[in-house]
């Protein structure tokens, strides 16, 4: 089973200005959304999980490997991170070379890398762009390239940073399916995300961060039942949850389909 154990970590970029403090959390199996306002420390947190940053105090174990003791390269086959800004991640001249770069670096043969790369591009719906220069693509398609290049590496743990950025309805539906499929395959999926509707529809567990701390952690439905706390940390409830409350219903609804089914049964 894939897991990340975070043991009481703290981190700061500048002395005296802690970005993260006393975070203690265990990720396993459940797909998990990490939510919180801009500047809450979410991106820093996932960079620590990936081993790009090392905690000042405490330890992080990625499938048993302490990130303090292994290099990013050694961890790369265990954990993949899709950057928020695809421009920070993409540097090859063609899409296919880009998606083959990671796989080849963790020991896949060229042929394997090509197959996994093409498969990942197909999953993202952009296999027809394989020979293009990534920088000739739109920002939203470039985001899909950055996701495909991590999928192609087939790491057992994948972290997404704002995957729905710039995606339209169909793009979001595709991402939702990919994340659910990965989950079903046993991959540990974590994602930073600002789209509360997407969180409600996709993730089993949700973690709320505020000012470098985890302030709420639990099953997504339970997390969104804490209306006041969600507002206090400058977030908002999913639209379906808001609608359920407006309709005077006591339960916490996560999707519009849940609401429709509930009210149809009642009628």
């Amino acid at each position, binding site marked *: 089973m894939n897991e990340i154990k975070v043991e009481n970590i703290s981190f700061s970029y500048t002395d005296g200005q802690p970005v993260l403090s006393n975070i203690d959390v265990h990720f396993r199996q459940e797909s998990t959304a990490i939510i*919180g*306002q*801009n*500047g809450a420390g979410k*991106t820093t947190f996932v960079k620590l999980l990936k081993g790009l940053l090392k905690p000042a105090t405490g330890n992080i174990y990625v499938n048993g490997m302490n990130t303090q003791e292994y290099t990013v390269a050694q961890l790369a086959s265990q954990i993949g991170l899709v950057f*928020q*800004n695809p*421009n920070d991640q993409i540097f090859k001249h063609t899409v296919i070379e880009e998606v083959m770069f990671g796989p080849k670096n963790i020991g896949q043969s060229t042929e394997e890398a090509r197959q996994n790369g093409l498969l990942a591009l197909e999953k993202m719906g952009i296999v027809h762009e394989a020979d293009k220069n990534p920088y000739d693509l*739109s*920002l*939203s*398609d470039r985001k899909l390239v950055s996701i495909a290049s991590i999928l192609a590496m087939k790491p057992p743990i994948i972290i997404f940073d*704002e995957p729905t*950025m*710039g*995606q*339209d*309805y*169909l*793009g979001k539906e595709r991402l939702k399916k990919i994340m659910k499929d990965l989950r079903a395959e046993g991959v540990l999926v974590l994602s930073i995300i*600002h789209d*509360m*509707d997407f969180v409600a529809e996709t993730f089993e567990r949700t973690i709320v961060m505020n000012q470098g701390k985890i302030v709420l952690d639990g099953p997504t439905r339970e997390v969104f039942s804490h209306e006041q706390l969600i507002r206090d940390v*400058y*977030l*908002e409830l999913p*639209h*379906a949850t*808001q*609608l359920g409350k*407006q*309709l005077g219903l006591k339960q916490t609804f996560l999707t*519009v389909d849940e*609401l*429709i089914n509930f*009210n*149809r049964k009642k009628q």
Partner: protein
Amino acid sequence: MKKIIVENLKYKYPDTDQLALNDVSFEVEEGEVIGIVGQNSAGKSSLCLALTGLIPHFFNGAYGGKVLIDGIEVKTSTITDLSQKAGLVFDNPFTQMTASKYTVYDEIAFGLENIGVSREEMIERVDWSLKMMGIENIKDKNPFDLSGGQMQRVAIASVIAMRPEILVLDEPTSQLDPQASEEVFRVIQQLSQEGITIVIAEHKMEKLACFTDRILLLYEGKQIDFDTPQKVFSRDDLHDYGVVPPIFTTYCKAMGMKNKNNNTYPVTLTEVSSLLGGENNE
């Protein structure tokens, strides 16, 4: 007064076969807020570029029809002239940073330096923009040390500092948390009340439903509809164009909750509750 007039606009990027914009025509009044919706590659970004002159002047390509910005024809004008009328916020804030300035404060002043605004006014405008976007606390930071969400707010601030009469925003909230997105839309509302005309491409339908006067629906470069959010989001064929209405509208459609006065479905939470309130009173 008509601030934007688009007549039979057609456009094709160089070295492509398909029209990115195919016969688009619409008119926008002063102070209106227009939302552009459509699936990716429907032409939303291209239209934003066409309203600010980057199409055709920067991108070249094949161009037909006419775009008038406050009476100035885009095709026969220059980006320099148009930049003083219409401001554009790019979809990727990274693209918007000049990389020639070391602080957020100077970054926001960049456009003003280029149009020869006096020092006093420049300071006043930069301070105003920082305040509007709620980023006074990061004014001394390097623009490239910011988070995606912070950079996105700097990008918007640097454009509103120019006080454009027409503000065009291409997915300005894609990296913002819910509260910050709401704040950006409130700023947009405030600017429109001051008479600024606003065009915004967005995927957040619930926000557009609350804050826009009219919605332009695009599909494969073609204009499908240009009407109130209620009318556009009530369309039965919306799904065919890769667009879903606000969740509130989806619910009301499924439950058959129609506003009988104008034969449309509610598009905001407030409209749902007033519809329910109305029924309860009957």
